[in-house]
């Protein structure tokens, strides 16, 4: 199994939307390397013909009647929003201006 480098941690952090500081990259690289080394024990069964289990209950598509029910008011739904306007969540700029 490959070791985890500082660059890989930086890549994972980008994918996971974590703006890690430089000193964190170093710290986490060592720790993630230890953890991945330990959990790699599962790969012993990689070639075994065993079905995977994703969930303890054998459930698929639990349906209910499509009926309107009481739900949160707009005020309630927006009550925890960092910013809102005109009954909508207000977010920072999504599309880039440059290029």
């Amino acid at each position, binding site marked *: 199994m490959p070791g985890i480098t500082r660059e890989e941690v930086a890549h994972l952090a980008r994918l996971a939307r974590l703006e890690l500081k430089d000193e964190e990259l170093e710290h986490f690289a060592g720790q993630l390397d230890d*953890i991945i080394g330990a959990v790699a024990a599962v790969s012993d069964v990689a070639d075994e013909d065993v079905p995977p289990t994703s969930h303890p209950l054998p459930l698929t598509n639990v349906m209910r009647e499509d009926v309107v029910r009481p739900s949160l008011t707009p005020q309630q739904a927006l009550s925890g929003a960092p910013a809102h306007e005109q009954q909508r969540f207000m977010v920072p700029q999504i599309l880039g201006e440059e290029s």
Partner: protein
Amino acid sequence: MTDLTRLSAAVLAEKIAAGEVTAVEATEAHLARIEAVDEKVHAFLHLDREGALAKAREVDAKREAGEKLGPLAGVPLALKDIFTTEGVPTTVGSKILEGWIPPYDATVTRKLKEADVVILGKTNMDEFAMGSSTENSAFGPTGNPWDLTRIPGGSGGGSSAALAAFEAPLALGTDTGGSIRQPAAVTGTVGVKPTYGGVSRYGMVAFSSSLDQGGPCARTVLDAALLHSVIAGHDERDSTSIDAPVPDVVAAARNGEVRGLRVGVVQEFGGEGYQAGVMQRFGESVELLRELGAEVVELSCPSFTKALAAYYLIAPSECSSNLARFDAMRYGLRVGDDGTHSAEEVTALTREAGFGDEVKRRVMLGTYALSSGYYDAYYGSAQKVRTLITQDFERAFAQVDVIVSPTTPTTAFPLGERADDPMAMYLADVCTLPVNLAGNAAMSLPCGLAPEDGLPVGLQIIAPAMADERLYRVGAAVEAAYEARWGHQLLDEAPSL
């Protein structure tokens, strides 16, 4: 006068129903206890004095009006800060939700309110329930009432400490890999992880959805059963909630019996890393079960040795997906929204500022395990191990009615000892994880103090899915036998705070 904080929930509820004690008196006694000791223990993140007293007054009015009260009416409870509470802060132990006031109640919260349970406040926990010591809380650790320099377990260390410090006779926890049972073990209290799907997850902040399960925490087996029966049951708001009758756990707890019961001892739960005093008390418990008329069967479940590895791939994978909702857009913390950063940058800056180290580690670990090129080797293999563990349990339960083991390999370790050593911390849950992977039910209850350090040891009882009542039948028998032997409850030996 009786110290109301020393009573069991069952006895307290009877006294309230009989009019010997008012719910307001019971609530005030517990609030006063919290006032006196919680500065040292730090079990609570938030107290809801007004809400608790309002509920207590409501219960007293009902009784005066001659209404029949429920079995836990007026009994105070400490709620883990992972269950949403309308109008009362819910932080999950994280800066990212600091100050958030949920606009709705979790199903568990609603059921507690409907049962007239008095919710005192919200208890401390490892951030997003990730941890085994409560040191990962963004709001400071909780102390173990047996020794305040030691961990109260985790993630539900606030709930277990509240019980052991007599701040509440009941508490709620959640158990993804042991977060109810391990805290119960190290504080000398009782904790139950119900069968997966037995208790609704609606309004319970998600960590690892295929493993998370809410459950009761208490100081006696009967109290845990009474609470279990209040919170369990089908909920159409949780599509993974089991649509079947709740096992009669209260009747089982009132009729402890193990005669003729086949009890399995799994050889993989033991060996290196297990404290001598823990194994001694466990061995005595097995002997006790034999004396009480149970048949003990030695078993091997070889795949259990891979449970830790599978768990630390599956849980982080699910958490990396679940925690994507903390994007700084709709609720919670937002950092860097000063007009110079894009939404994506604001998300990354907020998650960096709002998440603690363990959450970051697990999110990145899950991202790694799910990424292309590693998916089959890691996540895919972990899912196969999950099948093998489930099959080991199935084979075992073809031979025995319940399995017993130590709940944890060691007693409570000192605060700080494993705080920055994730692998050492993860080992605290080595006996509890297989149960979550298979979706079975399990309980931890006190079985004595380890001779070398005088700290509580937990006995784990595991039952097949949907057979939760077996935990209570066996637990009640063991509890009664130990208390007869000791002449008191184990917690009576805890130092006064």
